[in-house]
Every structure is written in C-alpha cells, then in structure tokens.
C-alpha cells in the first residue's frame, strides 16, 4: 500500500494534494477524504499548532500503520500542518483510496478522530484578548472511543 504521511510547516493546497493522490491510485474504486480548516467564524486571529519532533511524525506514522492494519486500502494520505495558520487555512487532509467504499470511509474517519484527540499536537488560538490553549471537546473524546475495542 502506498502511504504519504507528512508534517507540513507551510501552507498547502488540499485540492492539489487530493488530485495527485487520485492520480497515484487509478486502481482504487473510491477515494474518501476530509479537509479540516481553521474556522473563520469566531474571533480567532491566528491558530498555532505545536509539535514535538520526537513524537509527532513518528506518531502519525504509527497511526498510518494502525489504519493500514484495520482496513484494506490501496493508498493512504495524512498531511497535517504545524505552525501558525490564519482563519480559513487548511490544517489537515486525510484521504484513503480503496476498492470498497466503507474501507475508505472508515479509514479516514478513524484517522481524523485520532488526529483530533490522540496525536502529538498542541493547539492554541489568538483571540482579541490574547492566546488560549485549546483542548479536545468532550465530543472529540467520545468520537475516538467509538474505535476502542
């Protein structure tokens, strides 16, 4: 299975990355994907994601291992930003190419749930009154627990 796991320090185009991913997997019957962006609807001026070299990318690779082990995929892409981002900027892109639709869907869903609350990133937002550290919502913890067996 072809795997493309990247920790990105600069802005990226999810559309372009998805197009290349689709081209790289002509054999797949379907491609599911998710793009997460900095929400522009609050008074957040900047979002910062912090990573720790010795854990973050190795952790993303381990997540990819787990996804590959659980679902039958032709390809898996996980791109995650680190650093400062403006509202509307893409933070994360996950895509899975598979012969069967449900494999692709579940792989992306699982990876997103884990990136959100069980990956080695720390997030803070700059609002009108300064910086605030963000922790996963209760919903995020519930989402990821769905996969615990």
């Amino acid at each position: 299975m072809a795997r493309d796991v990247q920790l990105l320090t600069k802005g990226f185009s999810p559309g372009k990355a998805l197009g290349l991913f689709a081209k790289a997997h002509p054999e797949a019957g379907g491609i599911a994907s998710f793009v997460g962006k900095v929400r522009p609807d609050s008074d957040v001026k900047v979002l910062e994601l912090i990573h720790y070299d010795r854990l973050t990318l190795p952790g993303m690779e381990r997540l990819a291992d787990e996804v590959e082990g659980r679902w039958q995929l032709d390809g898996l892409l996980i791109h995650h930003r680190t650093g400062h981002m403006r509202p509307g900027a893409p933070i994360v892109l996950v895509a899975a190419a598979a012969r069967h639709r449900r494999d692709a869907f579940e792989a992306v869903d699982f990876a997103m749930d884990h990136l959100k609350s069980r990956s080695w990133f720390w997030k803070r937002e700059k609002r009108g009154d300064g910086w605030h550290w963000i922790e996963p919502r209760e919903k995020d913890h519930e989402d990821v627990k769905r996969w615990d067996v």
Partner: protein
Amino acid sequence: MAVTVIFIGKLADLAGEGERELPAPLDWAGLMAALDPDLAIAAKSQRTMVAVNGEVLADKESLAAKDGDEIALLPPVSGG
C-alpha cells in the same frame, strides 16, 4: 552530565522557557524538586504525560533519566 527537560504548550508558558538542563541522573522525585511548585503540580496532573527520548512512559513516576536523555512534559494534546 545533564538531562534536557522539554516543556510543551501550556507547560512552556508556566515554565517561562521551552527547555531546561538538569543534572543527571534524574528520577521523578528529583524532577519534581527541581521544578517551580506550579509547574510541579501541572506535571503531576494525571493529564500530563512524560516521554523520555521519544518514548512515552506508562508510569511517569518510574522516570530514570541519565546523561544525554531528553525528558518531555506533555500536556493534553489537541490536533486536527
């Protein structure tokens, strides 16, 4: 003969720095004694994890760092 302690996220805010060198060897009691009380309380929180050289400890109180080791104090994560 030193251990590097990395503070991440809000722990770096509390520490007022991103990392600090402490004398090796260093165990959990030694680390707690070396940190400011606020930071020690945050480090003891059940939600703070500890990694040594990129390996997360199942039980942080079993910490036993030696010269050249890198200890990271990890607050709750949030990605995506």
